[in-house]
């Protein structure tokens, strides 16, 4: 039993009036549930210890469902009988006594069977303590805690919860190495303690880690819920307030695409989103990037730049600007108004500062457009013939350019739309796209450029990232 809960019960017993005791008990149980699942919203009903009406109602943001919670102080035999009236609502039954005291007794076994079948989660404060204590250790355990409150079933006191936690931890560690036995044990434990929806989230995640390791998907243990990781699964994972190791996020990142990320529901700021995208920059791809001026909003987090998901797109949010990523098609970009065209010296300055190679530019005349292109994809900026053309055209601005990424792919830059994208079905890794092309779209300050590089490059140097292209990019 958590000390906080024991103290709360002692405090409750000090109240003379029933209403005082009831209020303390309800608050204490609310705290117990919140310790396991911090995202839960707990509403108090006007009922207490009622045969049919719950004491608390559990709700979750963005979810149109509720789970009733009954606080009970009763024996397993009593609970078994009670379930006849309430089990159809798949409730949580939270007992004030520790369930463990009669674990070997026949009523307890009957209760376990009945609760598991009826989708009812019977737990006590040792059960909530066991999961609350480990919840913050990893996002998986955080997700397990959430899953138990949302869809736990069966009787779960501390020993049962510990067994589930251990099986889950071993399963994920094993899946990361392609080990079948621990993965199978984890699936069995997870599906034994959770309803189909909640078990499915965890087993799909387990499968993602399994396949991320390169193991054969066909040899993954049979699960009740099939399919790959969904945006909803990922939303749950990202909402868990716990620190995952970069290694963990790298494993998850192998099952994630820019398209999937664009569909997740995530708060801003989200440390987990930063960790996941950061760990996946060498895998995530995009069709392109569009920069839109969007002023700082009151109460907006002041951590710039940061990854966000907004308007159903993954984006990098800076102060007063947002760089939207299109996963597959340019039509995914949010609409924008034409910006003023930059002049040649401006683009030269931006490209030089970032050592971005430009192989083609289109100069906008009054009623003409002149395109200058290098034949082999070499740098065109600064060439005498280009300088001369620009001068002859009265320092006309640039409408388009083609930037060459370190891997040789061409990115077309549309300056009026402040958009960089590939032609046809070409997509780009996020890291080079944002490192070398995004800076061409605006006059970022040195501070902002350093921020973009910090987020996109992480702790790696250019030489480590692009050893085949020494001198590509800049060091800060």
């Amino acid at each position, binding site marked *: 039993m958590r000390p906080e809960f024991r103290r709360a019960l002692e405090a409750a017993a000090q109240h003379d009036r029933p209403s005082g005791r009831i209020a303390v008990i309800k608050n204490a149980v609310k705290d117990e549930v919140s310790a396991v699942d911090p995202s839960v919203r707990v509403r108090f009903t006007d009922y*207490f210890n009622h045969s*049919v*009406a719950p004491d608390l109602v559990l709700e979750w943001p963005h979810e149109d469902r509720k789970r009733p919670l009954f606080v009970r102080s009763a*024996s397993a035999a009593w609970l078994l009988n009670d379930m006849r*009236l309430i089990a159809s609502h798949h409730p949580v039954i939270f007992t004030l006594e520790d369930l463990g005291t009669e674990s070997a007794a026949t009523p307890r076994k009957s209760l376990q069977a009945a609760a598991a079948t009826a989708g009812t989660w019977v737990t006590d404060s040792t059960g909530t303590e066991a999961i609350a204590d480990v919840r913050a250790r990893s996002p998986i355990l955080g997700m397990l805690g959430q899953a138990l409150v949302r869809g736990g079933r069966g009787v779960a006191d501390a020993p049962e919860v510990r067994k589930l936690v251990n099986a889950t931890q071993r399963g994920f560690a094993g899946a990361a190495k392609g080990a079948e036995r621990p993965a199978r044990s984890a699936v069995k434990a997870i599906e034994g303690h959770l309803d189909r929806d909640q078990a499915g989230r965890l087993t799909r995640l387990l499968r993602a880690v399994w396949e991320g390791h390169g193991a054969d998907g066909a040899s993954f243990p049979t699960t009740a819920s099939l399919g790959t990781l969904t945006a909803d699964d990922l939303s749950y994972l990202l909402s868990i307030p716990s620190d995952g190791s970069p290694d963990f996020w790298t494993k998850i990142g192998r099952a994630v695409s820019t398209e999937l990320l664009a569909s997740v529901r995530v708060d801003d700021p989200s440390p987990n989103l930063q960790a996941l995208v950061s760990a996946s920059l060498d895998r995530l791809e995009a069709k392109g990037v569009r920069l839109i001026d969007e002023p700082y909003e009151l109460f907006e987090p002041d951590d710039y730049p940061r990854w966000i998901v907004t308007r159903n797109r993954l984006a990098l949010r800076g102060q007063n600007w947002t760089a939207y990523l299109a996963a597959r098609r340019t039509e995914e970009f949010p609409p924008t108004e034409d910006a003023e065209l930059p002049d040649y010296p401006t683009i030269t300055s931006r490209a030089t500062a970032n050592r971005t190679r430009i192989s083609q530019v289109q100069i906008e005349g009054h009623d003409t457009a002149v395109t200058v292109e290098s034949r082999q994809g070499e740098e065109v900026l600064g060439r005498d013939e280009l300088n001369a053309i620009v001068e002859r055209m009265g320092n006309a601005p640039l409408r388009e350019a083609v930037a060459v990424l370190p891997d040789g792919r061409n990115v077309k830059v549309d300056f009026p739309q402040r958009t960089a994208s590939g032609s046809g079905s070409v997509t780009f890794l996020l890291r080079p796209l944002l490192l070398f092309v995004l800076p061409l779209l605006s006059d970022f300050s040195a501070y902002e450029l350093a921020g973009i590089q910090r987020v996109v490059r992480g702790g790696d140097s250019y030489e480590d990232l692009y050893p085949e292209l020494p001198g590509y990019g800049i060091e800060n």
Partner: protein
Amino acid sequence: MAGESAHDKGRDGLQRAKQWLDLTTRVESWTHDHRILGSLVHFEWPFARGLAKPFSFDMGGEFRGESLAEQSFLAEVKNYEYEMDLHAHFLDFLAKCYIALGNRPELCDNFLWISWSPFQAQKWNQHATTASVRRALTLPRNRKRALGVDKADDVVGQWDVERMGEVAKRIWLITLSDKQEMLVPIEDHYFKIKEIIDRERGLRR
């Protein structure tokens, strides 16, 4: 003296009585073995000693709605199929009520006697009377533990006549039957009624 939980029949009766009360939508209740609320139905015979001193009712609670709103109650539940020794138990119940009312009147707005069998039906109208309470307190076992007197003649002067009258007024005689227990709102309807009640009260965050 949590006697009812000592055997399955007693527990079964207590749970059925609680469920029936709860389904009226007018009751909030707890049983004698509730970890935190249970102590609110536990009392002591003032003149008994040792293990004989504590006693409890089977259930306590509060009513809700209209004229009963926030009134407290204590209840004794006897899961007997026929009269057996119900009358003796009832007289003890009256003595318990007398002591409880003297100690914690705020918990004693109503005293509920719930059984599945009537007793002394010819005198049914006399059960909840001051005379009946007086008789209960005059019984040897009760006059000793409740009033501290050995002889029947000595009880006068030791008891509080006004309190006896109050006990009588607060008695509810409820006789359930197995079939009657089915005659409650079906679950779907119960929840619809509850939704209306919840809407009226407003769920508190």
